[in-house]
């Protein structure tokens, strides 16, 4: 398993995935950093002064928006790296001589899965930490629970990695990618439906949303990360006003049990993927 994990990591480096992601993400972080720096130096607008509190509030909202977009980027990165890693190797025949060696298919899958999970989690945490750092340097703002938020974000990426790997044991890279992306979007919409259901006290809609989150907990992990980016005052204000927080905010994060469910889900999907791969004729 360690050999395969090391091989997978080496492939990501040699094929310049890591370098490409680093350069693209550095550009993204630098650009947003410049924006926050500019915002912080905005002392007057529309003929009235811009207070520091106003800048901090705006920063917190914009940071959530950036995190929202980044959660999409992370999911796509997880899918587009994980889906081909197995199916391409099967289709091209690269895996045949490896499978004829005395190691189980489960070990091959575990090696690839662990390496990809490490890369995706590291990408989420490093990018997020850089973004938080640059925002702090530019405006002095720190989100309420940055570490927990990044951990949940990383978990959402690992969920998508595991899901794409499962699909790739039976589908082509393209097929697995399409299914995983569509499922991700359905579940993201399910999360929004859940919030709408809660706002209107509609149990059917709420349960439908919850069901999608249980089936693919990527959105549950996103909502958990999101809640830890929201300033307490903002959450309290929204709760008191009884307004729908919209798709970019949440006033009721998933319960702690969802974290346990997600971890169990990842293990179950990994086992299912190993079983599926073991039974596949090549």
């Amino acid at each position, binding site marked *: 398993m360690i*050999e395969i994990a090391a*091989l997978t990591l*080496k*492939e990501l480096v*040699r*094929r310049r995935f890591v370098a490409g992601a680093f350069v693209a993400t550095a550009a993204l972080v630098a650009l947003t950093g410049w924006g926050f720096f500019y915002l912080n130096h905005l002392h007057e607008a529309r003929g009235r002064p811009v207070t520091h509190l106003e800048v901090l509030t705006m920063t917190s909202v914009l940071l959530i928006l950036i995190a929202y977009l980044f959660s999409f980027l992370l999911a796509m990165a997880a899918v587009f790296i994980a889906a081909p890693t197995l199916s391409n190797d099967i289709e*091209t*025949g*690269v895996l*045949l*001589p*490896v*499978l*004829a*060696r*005395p*190691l*189980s298919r489960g070990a091959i899958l575990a090696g690839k899965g662990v390496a990809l999970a490490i890369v995706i989690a590291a990408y989420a945490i490093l990018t997020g930490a850089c973004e938080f750092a640059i925002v702090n340097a530019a405006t002095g703002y720190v989100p309420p629970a940055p570490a927990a938020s990044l951990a949940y974000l990383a978990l959402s990426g690992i969920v998508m990695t595991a899901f794409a790997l499962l699909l790739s044991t039976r589908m082509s890279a393209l097929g697995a990618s399409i299914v995983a992306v569509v499922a991700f979007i359905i579940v993201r919409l399910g999360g929004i439906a859940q919030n709408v259901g809660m706002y209107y006290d509609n149990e059917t809609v709420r349960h439908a949303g919850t069901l999608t989150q249980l089936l693919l907990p990527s959105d549950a992990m996103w909502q958990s990360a999101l809640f830890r980016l929201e300033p307490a005052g903002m959450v309290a204000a929204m709760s008191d006003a009884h307004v729908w927080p919209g798709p970019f905010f949440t006033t009721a994060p998933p319960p702690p049990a969802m974290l346990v469910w997600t971890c169990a889900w990842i293990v179950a999907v990994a086992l299912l993927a190993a079983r599926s791969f073991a*039974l596949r*004729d*090549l």
Partner: protein
Amino acid sequence: MQTDCANVVDVEHLAKQFGHVVALVDLTLHVRKGEIFGFLGPNGAGKTTSVKLLAGLARPSAGSGTLLGYPLGDRRARRRLGYLPELFRYHDWLTAREVLALHARLIGERVHVRDLDAALQTVGLRARAGDRVGTFSKGMQQRLGLAVALLGNPELVILDEPTSALDPAGRLEVREILRGLRDRGVSVFLNSHLLTEVEKVCDRIAIVTRGRVVAQGTIPEIAGASAGVRVRVRENGTPLTQALAEYGPYTRDGEHIFAPEVHADRIPALVAALVAAGAQVYAVEPASTTLEERFLQLTQERGA
């Protein structure tokens, strides 16, 4: 489990179905230790499916068997197995040496760089050891595949069309490598549709068509006994009728004589009789049913 049995492959009535497609109906094979076993068949006969069943890459729908004394698919057998797939592709972002090092680690062997280079030398790739596989031609990748298959002193090497991308010189080299393996007691399972290649190196063969083994044995056993002799002669004034009289019926076309009832062990006597009669003998060719003729006969009988 047994490890020193006489047969390295023993399979009985293996069958394989992919959905509604029947790829293999009845594969019964016995490959002996230390022999080069040729596995022949026309396109779509089920050869590669059979190889994949042996290598544990697919599971049989019916039947059973052992590889190196272990049930098919057992990982312990794969520790002593070398395999070159028909679809040979290796990680194109690794160098040739790195590919070998990877496979050495996968079989748990501690192999020194010089051993890896020696393996590459065997297949003529020593000079390209540090180059990425992505820069290799198809033939070079097949050579690399052969080096990978030979890594770790396997007891059985399964080669699926190992010379399909090689030039004539490369094919000759592979034949030499195969003979070298046999000399070291390594068994070779050679899947090929190149009859000449199989004829030149294999001790025994099996012919498979439409998913069934239709013949198994040595090449003479399968191709049949001698079927006469062809001689090219030039007379020196004396008619050869008398000299040929005791060798049965014959046909003549100019300098070419074909005597269909002359067995191989009577050919020297026939040549001596012709020379004694004053003829100049330019060529003597024992005629027999060729493997190609027998192959076509067997595969077409089944195909009809």
